[in-house]
Protein backbone atom coordinates (compact mmCIF):
# COMPACT_ATOMS: atom_id res chain seq x y z
CA UNK A 1 0.00 0.00 0.00
CA UNK A 2 2.69 2.45 1.07
CA UNK A 3 4.75 1.27 -1.86
CA UNK A 4 2.00 2.08 -4.21
CA UNK A 5 1.51 5.53 -2.75
CA UNK A 6 5.22 6.30 -3.03
CA UNK A 7 5.14 5.16 -6.63
CA UNK A 8 2.16 7.41 -7.40
CA UNK A 9 3.90 10.36 -5.75
CA UNK A 10 7.02 9.76 -7.81
CA UNK A 11 4.99 9.44 -10.99
CA UNK A 12 3.19 12.71 -10.30
CA UNK A 13 6.49 14.37 -9.50
CA UNK A 14 8.00 13.18 -12.75
CA UNK A 15 4.98 14.33 -14.75
CA UNK A 16 5.11 17.76 -13.10
CA UNK A 17 8.80 18.04 -13.91
CA UNK A 18 8.11 17.24 -17.55
CA UNK A 19 5.27 19.76 -17.69
CA UNK A 20 7.42 22.47 -16.09
CA UNK A 21 10.38 21.75 -18.32
CA UNK A 22 8.42 21.39 -21.55
CA UNK A 23 8.22 25.11 -22.39
CA UNK A 24 11.96 25.48 -21.78
CA UNK A 25 12.71 22.59 -24.11
CA UNK A 26 10.30 23.82 -26.75
CA UNK A 27 11.71 27.35 -26.91
CA UNK A 28 15.24 26.02 -27.11
CA UNK A 29 14.43 23.77 -30.04
CA UNK A 30 15.68 24.54 -33.49
CA UNK A 31 14.89 22.49 -36.54
CA UNK A 32 18.42 22.71 -37.93
CA UNK A 33 19.56 19.15 -38.47
CA UNK A 34 23.15 17.96 -38.09
CA UNK A 35 23.62 17.39 -41.82
CA UNK A 36 22.67 20.99 -42.57
CA UNK A 37 25.26 22.59 -40.30
CA UNK A 38 28.25 24.00 -42.14
CA UNK A 39 31.82 23.51 -40.97
CA UNK A 40 32.63 27.20 -40.54
CA UNK A 41 31.11 28.27 -37.19
CA UNK A 42 31.07 31.95 -38.21
CA UNK A 43 28.95 31.20 -41.30
CA UNK A 44 26.75 28.84 -39.30
CA UNK A 45 26.13 31.59 -36.72
CA UNK A 46 25.26 34.10 -39.46
CA UNK A 47 22.96 31.54 -41.09
CA UNK A 48 21.19 30.92 -37.78
CA UNK A 49 20.72 34.65 -37.23
CA UNK A 50 19.30 35.14 -40.74
CA UNK A 51 17.07 32.07 -40.43
CA UNK A 52 15.54 33.36 -37.21
CA UNK A 53 14.29 36.44 -39.03
CA UNK A 54 12.72 34.58 -41.96
CA UNK A 55 9.17 33.30 -41.85
CA UNK A 56 8.45 29.73 -42.80
CA UNK A 57 6.04 30.01 -45.76
CA UNK A 58 4.35 26.74 -44.92
CA UNK A 59 3.59 27.19 -41.22
CA UNK A 60 3.74 31.00 -41.30
CA UNK A 61 4.07 31.59 -37.56
CA UNK A 62 7.44 29.93 -37.21
CA UNK A 63 10.79 31.08 -38.44
CA UNK A 64 12.60 28.80 -40.86
CA UNK A 65 15.05 28.17 -38.03
CA UNK A 66 12.31 26.51 -35.96
CA UNK A 67 10.25 24.89 -38.67
CA UNK A 68 10.43 21.26 -39.66
CA UNK A 69 8.74 21.92 -43.00
CA UNK A 70 10.74 20.77 -45.99
CA UNK A 71 10.56 24.16 -47.65
CA UNK A 72 12.06 25.68 -44.48
CA UNK A 73 14.87 23.14 -44.62
CA UNK A 74 15.55 23.96 -48.27
CA UNK A 75 15.57 27.68 -47.43
CA UNK A 76 18.03 27.07 -44.58
CA UNK A 77 20.30 25.18 -46.97
CA UNK A 78 20.01 27.97 -49.53
CA UNK A 79 20.96 30.57 -46.90
CA UNK A 80 24.04 28.54 -45.97
CA UNK A 81 25.08 27.97 -49.58
CA UNK A 82 24.74 31.65 -50.40
CA UNK A 83 26.79 32.64 -47.35
CA UNK A 84 29.48 30.10 -48.27
CA UNK A 85 29.51 31.54 -51.78
CA UNK A 86 30.42 34.89 -50.22
CA UNK A 87 27.10 36.73 -50.09
CA UNK A 88 26.58 39.29 -47.33
CA UNK A 89 23.79 38.79 -44.77
CA UNK A 90 21.84 41.60 -46.43
CA UNK A 91 22.21 40.08 -49.89
CA UNK A 92 20.90 36.72 -48.70
CA UNK A 93 17.88 38.28 -47.00
CA UNK A 94 17.27 40.56 -49.97
CA UNK A 95 17.24 37.60 -52.35
CA UNK A 96 14.60 35.77 -50.34
CA UNK A 97 12.53 38.95 -49.93
CA UNK A 98 12.73 39.46 -53.72
CA UNK A 99 11.12 36.02 -54.14
CA UNK A 100 8.53 36.04 -51.37
CA UNK A 101 7.98 39.70 -50.52
CA UNK A 102 8.25 41.48 -47.17
CA UNK A 103 5.88 38.91 -45.73
CA UNK A 104 8.81 36.55 -45.35
CA UNK A 105 10.41 38.90 -42.80
CA UNK A 106 9.26 38.28 -39.25
CA UNK A 107 10.22 41.87 -38.42
CA UNK A 108 8.38 43.94 -41.04
CA UNK A 109 10.37 46.87 -42.48
CA UNK A 110 9.32 50.47 -41.91
CA UNK A 111 8.25 51.74 -45.33
CA UNK A 112 5.30 53.32 -47.10
CA UNK A 113 3.31 50.08 -47.32
CA UNK A 114 3.74 49.36 -43.61
CA UNK A 115 3.22 52.86 -42.15
CA UNK A 116 -0.28 51.87 -41.05
CA UNK A 117 1.14 48.83 -39.29
CA UNK A 118 3.79 50.72 -37.37
CA UNK A 119 2.08 54.06 -36.86
CA UNK A 120 -1.54 52.89 -36.55
CA UNK A 121 -1.34 51.93 -32.86
CA UNK A 122 0.49 55.18 -32.03
CA UNK A 123 -2.12 57.20 -33.93
CA UNK A 124 -4.96 55.43 -32.12
CA UNK A 125 -3.24 55.98 -28.75
CA UNK A 126 -2.67 59.67 -29.54
CA UNK A 127 -6.28 60.02 -30.59
CA UNK A 128 -7.51 58.36 -27.40
CA UNK A 129 -5.29 60.55 -25.22
CA UNK A 130 -6.49 63.64 -27.05
CA UNK A 131 -10.06 62.58 -26.53
CA UNK A 132 -9.54 62.02 -22.80
CA UNK A 133 -7.74 65.37 -22.49
CA UNK A 134 -10.54 67.29 -24.22
CA UNK A 135 -13.20 65.42 -22.26
CA UNK A 136 -11.68 66.20 -18.86
CA UNK A 137 -10.89 69.81 -19.68
CA UNK A 138 -14.49 70.35 -20.71
CA UNK A 139 -15.75 68.78 -17.53
CA UNK A 140 -13.36 70.83 -15.40
CA UNK A 141 -14.53 73.99 -17.20
CA UNK A 142 -18.14 73.16 -16.62
CA UNK A 143 -17.80 72.63 -12.86
CA UNK A 144 -16.28 76.07 -12.35
CA UNK A 145 -19.14 78.09 -10.78
CA UNK A 146 -20.19 81.41 -12.26
CA UNK A 147 -19.93 84.31 -9.75
CA UNK A 148 -23.23 85.08 -7.98
CA UNK A 149 -25.16 88.11 -9.03
CA UNK A 150 -26.19 90.72 -6.46
CA UNK A 151 -29.67 89.25 -6.51
CA UNK A 152 -28.38 85.74 -5.80
CA UNK A 153 -26.24 87.07 -2.94
CA UNK A 154 -29.30 88.62 -1.28
CA UNK A 155 -31.32 85.40 -1.65
CA UNK A 156 -28.44 83.37 -0.26
CA UNK A 157 -28.05 85.67 2.75
CA UNK A 158 -31.78 85.41 3.39
CA UNK A 159 -31.72 81.59 3.25
CA UNK A 160 -28.71 81.38 5.54
CA UNK A 161 -30.39 83.79 8.01
CA UNK A 162 -33.53 81.74 8.05
CA UNK A 163 -31.67 78.53 8.79
CA UNK A 164 -29.80 80.06 11.69
CA UNK A 165 -31.35 79.12 14.93
Amino acid at each position, binding site marked *: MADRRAFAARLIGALLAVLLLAPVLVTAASAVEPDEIVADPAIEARARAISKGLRC*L*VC*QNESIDESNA*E*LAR*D*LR*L*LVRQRLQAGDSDQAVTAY*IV*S*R*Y*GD*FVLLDPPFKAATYALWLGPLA*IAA*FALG*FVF*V*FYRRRAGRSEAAPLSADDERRLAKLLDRNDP
Partner: protein
Amino acid sequence: MLRRLPYLLPLIVLAGLAGYFWSGLGRDPNTLPSVLIDQPLPELALAPIAGRERGLVTADLKGQVSLLNIFGSWCVACQAEHPFLMQLKAEGRVPIHGINWRERDADAGPAWLRRLGDPYTLIGADPDSRAAIALGVTGAPETFIIDAAGVIRYKHIGPITRDIWEKKLWPIVERLRRG
Protein backbone atom coordinates in the same frame (compact mmCIF):
# COMPACT_ATOMS: atom_id res chain seq x y z
CA MET B 1 -23.24 68.25 -34.88
CA LEU B 2 -19.70 69.61 -34.74
CA ARG B 3 -19.86 69.75 -30.94
CA ARG B 4 -20.76 66.08 -30.86
CA LEU B 5 -17.94 65.10 -33.18
CA PRO B 6 -15.52 64.11 -30.40
CA TYR B 7 -18.12 61.65 -29.17
CA LEU B 8 -19.02 60.29 -32.58
CA LEU B 9 -15.47 59.97 -33.82
CA PRO B 10 -14.63 56.81 -31.84
CA LEU B 11 -17.80 55.22 -33.18
CA ILE B 12 -16.88 56.17 -36.73
CA VAL B 13 -13.36 54.81 -36.27
CA LEU B 14 -14.78 51.62 -34.76
CA ALA B 15 -17.17 51.19 -37.69
CA GLY B 16 -14.30 51.69 -40.13
CA LEU B 17 -12.08 49.15 -38.40
CA ALA B 18 -14.95 46.67 -38.07
CA GLY B 19 -15.64 46.93 -41.80
CA TYR B 20 -11.96 46.47 -42.62
CA PHE B 21 -11.60 43.42 -40.38
CA TRP B 22 -14.90 41.98 -41.59
CA SER B 23 -13.68 42.07 -45.17
CA GLY B 24 -10.43 40.44 -44.01
CA LEU B 25 -12.28 37.51 -42.46
CA GLY B 26 -13.29 36.29 -45.89
CA ARG B 27 -9.72 36.15 -47.16
CA ASP B 28 -7.65 33.00 -47.10
CA PRO B 29 -4.50 33.73 -45.08
CA ASN B 30 -2.66 30.97 -46.93
CA THR B 31 -2.79 32.61 -50.33
CA LEU B 32 0.03 35.10 -50.38
CA PRO B 33 0.22 37.65 -53.15
CA SER B 34 3.22 36.94 -55.34
CA VAL B 35 5.77 39.72 -55.66
CA LEU B 36 6.86 38.19 -58.96
CA ILE B 37 3.79 39.16 -60.98
CA ASP B 38 4.91 41.17 -64.04
CA GLN B 39 8.51 40.18 -63.39
CA PRO B 40 10.49 38.18 -65.93
CA LEU B 41 10.97 34.52 -65.07
CA PRO B 42 14.06 33.88 -62.98
CA GLU B 43 16.97 32.15 -64.67
CA LEU B 44 16.05 28.46 -64.69
CA ALA B 45 18.30 25.69 -65.96
CA LEU B 46 16.64 22.51 -64.80
CA ALA B 47 17.83 19.02 -65.57
CA PRO B 48 15.42 16.59 -67.23
CA ILE B 49 13.62 14.02 -65.11
CA ALA B 50 14.46 10.35 -65.65
CA GLY B 51 13.22 9.10 -69.04
CA ARG B 52 13.20 12.52 -70.74
CA GLU B 53 15.80 14.05 -72.97
CA ARG B 54 15.12 17.71 -72.29
CA GLY B 55 14.87 19.62 -69.07
CA LEU B 56 13.58 23.15 -68.77
CA VAL B 57 15.40 26.44 -69.24
CA THR B 58 14.02 29.96 -69.12
CA ALA B 59 14.32 30.41 -72.89
CA ASP B 60 11.92 27.48 -73.42
CA LEU B 61 9.12 29.54 -71.92
CA LYS B 62 9.43 32.40 -74.38
CA GLY B 63 7.60 32.73 -77.68
CA GLN B 64 4.07 31.85 -76.61
CA VAL B 65 1.75 32.02 -73.64
CA SER B 66 2.18 28.93 -71.47
CA LEU B 67 1.46 27.45 -68.07
CA LEU B 68 4.16 26.49 -65.63
CA ASN B 69 2.88 24.00 -63.08
CA ILE B 70 4.74 23.03 -59.90
CA PHE B 71 4.04 19.43 -58.95
CA GLY B 72 5.40 16.49 -56.99
CA SER B 73 4.47 12.86 -56.66
CA TRP B 74 4.28 13.40 -52.86
CA CYS B 75 1.65 16.12 -53.27
CA VAL B 76 -1.93 14.97 -52.75
CA ALA B 77 -3.48 18.13 -54.18
CA CYS B 78 -1.41 17.66 -57.36
CA GLN B 79 -2.95 14.25 -57.80
CA ALA B 80 -6.38 15.83 -57.39
CA GLU B 81 -5.51 18.42 -60.03
CA HIS B 82 -3.88 15.97 -62.42
CA PRO B 83 -6.99 14.67 -64.31
CA PHE B 84 -7.89 18.24 -65.21
CA LEU B 85 -4.42 18.91 -66.58
CA MET B 86 -4.82 15.78 -68.74
CA GLN B 87 -8.10 17.17 -70.07
CA LEU B 88 -6.47 20.52 -70.72
CA LYS B 89 -3.69 18.82 -72.65
CA ALA B 90 -6.25 16.88 -74.70
CA GLU B 91 -8.05 20.12 -75.53
CA GLY B 92 -4.71 21.55 -76.66
CA ARG B 93 -5.53 25.05 -75.54
CA VAL B 94 -2.19 26.03 -74.06
CA PRO B 95 1.17 24.31 -73.53
CA ILE B 96 1.67 23.10 -69.96
CA HIS B 97 5.20 22.89 -68.64
CA GLY B 98 6.04 21.31 -65.33
CA ILE B 99 8.56 21.62 -62.54
CA ASN B 100 8.88 18.33 -60.73
CA TRP B 101 9.54 19.65 -57.25
CA ARG B 102 11.53 18.02 -54.47
CA GLU B 103 11.40 14.35 -55.32
CA ARG B 104 13.43 12.34 -52.82
CA ASP B 105 13.74 9.54 -55.30
CA ALA B 106 14.67 10.51 -58.87
CA ASP B 107 12.20 7.98 -60.27
CA ALA B 108 9.23 8.99 -58.09
CA GLY B 109 8.09 11.77 -60.46
CA PRO B 110 8.47 9.74 -63.68
CA ALA B 111 6.69 6.76 -62.07
CA TRP B 112 3.84 9.02 -60.98
CA LEU B 113 3.49 10.34 -64.56
CA ARG B 114 3.64 6.85 -66.04
CA ARG B 115 0.82 5.79 -63.75
CA LEU B 116 -1.45 8.83 -64.18
CA GLY B 117 -0.47 10.16 -67.60
CA ASP B 118 1.85 12.99 -68.57
CA PRO B 119 0.27 16.34 -69.49
CA TYR B 120 3.56 18.25 -69.65
CA THR B 121 5.34 19.52 -72.75
CA LEU B 122 8.60 20.12 -70.89
CA ILE B 123 9.55 19.14 -67.37
CA GLY B 124 12.43 20.33 -65.25
CA ALA B 125 13.57 18.56 -62.10
CA ASP B 126 13.96 20.65 -58.96
CA PRO B 127 15.12 18.27 -56.22
CA ASP B 128 16.56 20.92 -53.89
CA SER B 129 13.84 23.61 -54.27
CA ARG B 130 16.21 26.02 -56.01
CA ALA B 131 13.71 26.82 -58.78
CA ALA B 132 10.74 26.70 -56.40
CA ILE B 133 12.34 29.32 -54.16
CA ALA B 134 13.35 31.45 -57.16
CA LEU B 135 9.67 31.39 -58.16
CA GLY B 136 8.47 32.20 -54.65
CA VAL B 137 6.59 28.92 -54.42
CA THR B 138 5.12 28.12 -51.01
CA GLY B 139 3.40 24.83 -51.74
CA ALA B 140 2.27 22.56 -54.53
CA PRO B 141 0.46 22.73 -56.81
CA GLU B 142 1.05 26.26 -58.02
CA THR B 143 0.56 27.36 -61.59
CA PHE B 144 2.08 30.38 -63.28
CA ILE B 145 0.83 31.93 -66.49
CA ILE B 146 3.86 33.05 -68.49
CA ASP B 147 3.37 35.43 -71.41
CA ALA B 148 5.13 35.22 -74.77
CA ALA B 149 7.93 37.47 -73.55
CA GLY B 150 8.68 35.14 -70.65
CA VAL B 151 7.12 37.41 -68.02
CA ILE B 152 5.14 35.96 -65.11
CA ARG B 153 1.63 37.34 -65.42
CA TYR B 154 -0.42 35.33 -62.95
CA LYS B 155 0.01 32.80 -60.18
CA HIS B 156 -2.65 30.37 -59.09
CA ILE B 157 -2.18 28.65 -55.74
CA GLY B 158 -3.79 25.25 -55.29
CA PRO B 159 -5.28 22.79 -57.75
CA ILE B 160 -6.84 24.11 -60.95
CA THR B 161 -10.39 22.94 -61.47
CA ARG B 162 -12.56 23.28 -64.56
CA ASP B 163 -14.40 26.12 -62.87
CA ILE B 164 -11.26 28.03 -61.92
CA TRP B 165 -9.82 27.46 -65.37
CA GLU B 166 -12.81 28.77 -67.31
CA LYS B 167 -13.52 31.71 -64.99
CA LYS B 168 -10.05 32.87 -64.02
CA LEU B 169 -7.12 31.42 -65.90
CA TRP B 170 -8.41 31.00 -69.46
CA PRO B 171 -9.56 34.65 -69.75
CA ILE B 172 -6.05 35.72 -68.71
CA VAL B 173 -4.45 33.43 -71.31
CA GLU B 174 -6.79 34.83 -73.97
CA ARG B 175 -6.06 38.41 -72.97
CA LEU B 176 -2.30 37.79 -73.06
CA ARG B 177 -2.58 36.19 -76.49
CA ARG B 178 -4.31 39.26 -77.85
CA GLY B 179 -1.31 41.16 -76.49
